[in-house]
């Protein structure tokens, strides 16, 4: 039996109380909207790419603690990353949260502060809260027009 403290770690609570990179970046080159119809979470993500790297990224909208903290942690983790690096990070993150048998090479990847979100795996209905921002980020980078939905 997993404990609530696995999911609501101090890092999560802190990023929920004081989200980093909240707002809209100056002169965004990419943007996307994310939406979780199950709980009404809405996310607006803006990015500025320069020389193939994410120079700045920010989010606004409203969501639960998991969604807010995940967005905040993601924006911190992505600054300076290339599109390929962002996708690799997402793959490793997503696999840790959803795969019962996470491949060894993904398990070996250092996720930094993002590891605080691993406890979400034990709460399957909340995985979407943690991954909404990532799907939205990828939609922005791939310049998808339609808002992202978790459903």
């Amino acid at each position, binding site marked *: *039996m997993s404990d*609530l403290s696995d*999911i*609501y770690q101090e890092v999560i*609570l802190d990023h*929920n*109380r004081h989200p980093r990179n909240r707002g809209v970046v100056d002169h965004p080159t990419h943007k996307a909207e994310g939406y979780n119809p*199950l*709980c*009404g*979470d*809405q996310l607006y993500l803006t990015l500025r790419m320069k020389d193939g790297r994410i120079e700045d990224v920010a989010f606004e909208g*409203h*969501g*639960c*603690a*998991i*969604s*807010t903290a995940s967005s905040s942690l993601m924006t911190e983790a992505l600054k300076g990353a290339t599109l390929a690096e962002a996708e690799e990070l997402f793959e490793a993150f997503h696999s840790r949260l959803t795969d019962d048998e996470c491949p060894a090479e993904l398990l070996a990847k250092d996720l930094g502060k993002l590891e605080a979100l691993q406890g979400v795996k034990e*709460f399957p209905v*909340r995985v979407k*809260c943690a991954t909404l921002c990532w799907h939205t980020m990828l939609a922005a980078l791939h310049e998808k027009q339609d808002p992202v939905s978790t459903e």
Partner: protein
Amino acid sequence: MSAIVDTCCKGVPPALATCGFEVDKVRQDFPLLSRKVHGKPLAYLDNAATTQKPQFVIDAITRFYQEECANIHRAVHLLSEEATQAYEGARVRIQRFLNARESREVIFVRGATEGINLVAATFGKQRIGPGDEVIITAMEHHSNIVPWQLLCQERGAKLVVAPINDKGELLLDQLEKLFTERTKMLNVVHVSNALGTVNPIKKIVAMAHAHGVPVLVDGAQGAPHLKVDVQDMNCDFYVLSAHKMFGPMGIGVLYGKKELLEEMPPYQSGGDMILSVTFERTTFNSLPYKFEAGTPDVAGAVGFGAAIAYLEKICLTNVAQYERELVDYCSARLLEIPGVRIVGTAEQKAAVVSFVVDNVHPHDIGTFLDQDGVAIRTGHHCAQPVMKRFGIPATSRASFAFYNTKEEIDRLAASLRNVIEVFR
């Protein structure tokens, strides 16, 4: 027919042999209520989403499949006759429950949503044209918004929304002003699933009828809690879902006035809804079969009938009073907690307490409460325009049935205090 109805009642629990109920005894009729969740006793406070089923209903469905299963209205063999009697017996029981004039005014559908879609696709399509207006209210569930929105888009008609006040009450004087000579329909919820508001349906129907406008009432949350008398309300249509009133999922009823149902074209076509078919032409069956194409959910109807039998033994008047106590108790306990605000404070309220907590998202509240065995709904409750009206993305909602207790509400309050402490 009365003999058929009586077989529906076979085995009503002795605790309910007389009108009235004791909550401890009633709880024993619902097997699911005794299960544990995360090692804690279940406090099921999500009854507006669906209610639990008494053993009596579960047995009725099982008995149908074990002893009576055959297709209805078709064969001459005994089983088919018994299945038909069980199905039609349920219809009569529901007719009496709603106080409809005739059983053919009771159409079996999949639920309230299908009932509304049926009316929109037949009555609506027949009567609503370009430039016409359809009124709904600001507190409707998506199921009583989207079918009308789609119809209006298709027909070039206009969807007009009657406003509510900050308590979540319909503004009747504003509603009155919305009627024009182009108004063709009014669709209104009996009890709001998100706010708990009970609308004064009789008054609203009289107002609409004075303008010559027919009224559909979404009774999904009304029928489980209030005495419904469709003749007294004088509504033209009333829809309800069995699963919200202790019956099975996937079955519900559309009540419609016979004169209107008879004029309406069929909704779906196929077997059982016909009198005769040639490749050139089909003659449709009479009511209610005109609207019941294909083999229906007979076991579902039987289960619905059993749920009504169970409800009648409990007595809805006793239930309403007890549930009002639960709502008042819950509101009082939650308001003792700093940072909690109740959304929907109408004078006339049924069985629902929706609330928001400063700085804590409903979804997080839901997860914490679940760990304590307390099941509530969090989110927009399929009523996003209601959330928008109150400027919030979502609420937490405790919703009650007669089997809930004050002790369960105490657990809700204690668990909520704990969440707030964590997020402080």
